[in-house]
């Protein structure tokens, strides 16, 4: 289940400046693809385009080798699990109810939840270390707990690809590492993982390919070593910084300077 775009242009309104401009990317199965960039650089827009929740102006998007226009909404939802940046839950729901919604793409008016669906929900809760939360009301969760529950919902979809927008933004170190290792393992098992993040160091550590966006354009793309270069990052982020290899984990780390 790969994602490919070519010359992708997205505008939120006619005549508005392009939120994405001629973006080309390719995320392959079995890998973690990280999308980086400053605030407002188009990361979340790219996610919406890949999920077809925003209409593109021009260019091509292919999902699993097929143009995204040829997919039905339901097919997309069976194939891609998504965790958007925010979500407002206005009515009381239990954690298990929320995670069970991940099974909706597999249900129909004539097919309600069976044992297999309930198992998928339990498995997803377990993988996100959220079993003990399952009876809690969603409104009583902390930000980090809610985030794990939302990731569990995406896993309960049993998708072949995951797209996550800042999934670890409100997580403590333990849960951040646990979730990223989970994503890494999912990719190693053959899933396509698209990870939108601000955390350059985590991207360097867990991703195979990076895409650095700057004001809707591709500033750099490739392996961590190809993208995380001081001169590239300094221009995009307009801040002086140092890129070094961390001797402990053997990965690049980016440190902003004073």
């Amino acid at each position, binding site marked *: 289940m790969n994602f490919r775009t070519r010359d992708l242009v997205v505008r939120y309104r006619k005549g508005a400046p392009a939120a994405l401009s001629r973006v080309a990317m390719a995320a392959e199965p079995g890998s973690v693809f990280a999308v980086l960039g400053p605030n407002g650089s188009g990361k979340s827009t790219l996610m919406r385009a890949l999920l077809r929740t925003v209409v593109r102006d021009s260019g091509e998007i292919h999902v699993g080798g097929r143009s995204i226009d040829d997919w039905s909404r339901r097919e997309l939802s069976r194939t891609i699990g998504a965790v958007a940046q925010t*979500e407002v839950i206005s009515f009381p729901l239990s954690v298990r*109810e929320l995670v069970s*919604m991940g099974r909706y793409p597999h249900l129909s008016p004539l097919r309600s939840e069976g044992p297999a669906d309930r198992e998928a929900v339990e498995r997803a809760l377990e993988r996100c270390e959220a079993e003990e939360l399952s009876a809690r009301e969603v409104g009583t969760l902390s930000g980090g707990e809610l985030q794990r529950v939302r990731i569990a919902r995406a896993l309960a979809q049993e998708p072949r690809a995951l797209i996550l927008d800042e999934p670890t933004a409100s997580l403590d170190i333990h849960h951040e590492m646990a979730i990223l290792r989970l994503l890494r393992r999912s990719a190693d098992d053959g899933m396509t993982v698209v990870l939108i993040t601000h955390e350059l160091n985590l991207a360097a550590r867990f991703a195979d390919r990076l895409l650095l966006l700057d004001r809707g354009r591709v500033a750099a793309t490739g392996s961590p070593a190809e993208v995380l270069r001081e001169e590239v990052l300094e221009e995009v982020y307009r801040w002086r910084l140092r890129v070094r290899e961390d001797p402990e984990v053997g990965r690049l780390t980016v440190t902003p300077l004073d």
Partner: protein
Amino acid sequence: MSRSLTSHLSAWVLLVLAVVGASCLSIRFGAASLGTLEVIDALLGGGSPTDRFIVRELRLPRTLLGILVGGGLALAGGVFQALLRNPLAEPYILGISGGSAAGAVLLLSLGWVTATSWALPLGAFAGAGLAILLVFGVALSADRRLDVRVLLLAGVVVGAFFSACIAVILTLSDAPTVRSAVLWMMGSLSGASWRSVGVVASYTLPTALVLVALARPLNLMAIGEETASHLGTEVERVKRIAYAVASLIAAAGVAFSGIIGFVGLIVPHAVRLVVGSDHRQLLPLSFLAGATFLVLADLLARLVLAPVEIPVGAITALLGVPFFLLLLRRSLRA
């Protein structure tokens, strides 16, 4: 959701019994004092012609209309609350109350119809329809997508416009017209007839089924349109169908019974406090609860000051507010 039908079986049984019980009471009691045996006799086609008329042509259709309108309003309210993700949403929110009242008041004050005419529902329905069209027109002109905030604002503003129209019309009307217009606006089931029951039923029941069939997408819409779409919902299509259908249910209810407030706002909340937010349970149970509530409210409206009838809209609020506050307090304690 893991909660199955059976886990709310008690709620289902209770509410079905409640509808039946409320209906029995509503047919048994009224302004005319008939005994239980006389009522049963009249139902079966015996008794005096007057008794037969009271039971079969007045109380029975009135009870059925109460079931349909009360159920329809509660169902529509539950759907609006999910779509707008706003617990304050109610069936009239898209300007329907203002539009229908303006239509009815205009006909009354022009002297074209009396308060009992069959043309009054038509006028009210046309007004509601006009309001819906205006609101949708504004909401859709802004963007290709139906924006919830624009819809909500347009609904409030269109409602306010029609309220202003009503104020102007009433100022220019004579006192008896003002009185019947005000009474109409407070809602009543007194206009019930077999014809109105037929019209409302053929209208409300199929549309109610459409809404109940949308329960699963509505569960997703209640947690946000973006997530709903990630989970396979055709968000724009569901929104358009659900808004249109729920508005039409509200408009049909309003046309034949005036503006009965409170049922559509409070009943879905009360049901939600008991069975949770799964719309597959919430929507059908809200229909049953709304039906029970309105039939009982109407019974009180007829009995309390008999032979004078209190507008049922006043009863729904007088009864509903304490009941709801009680339920709210209990759920906060738990």
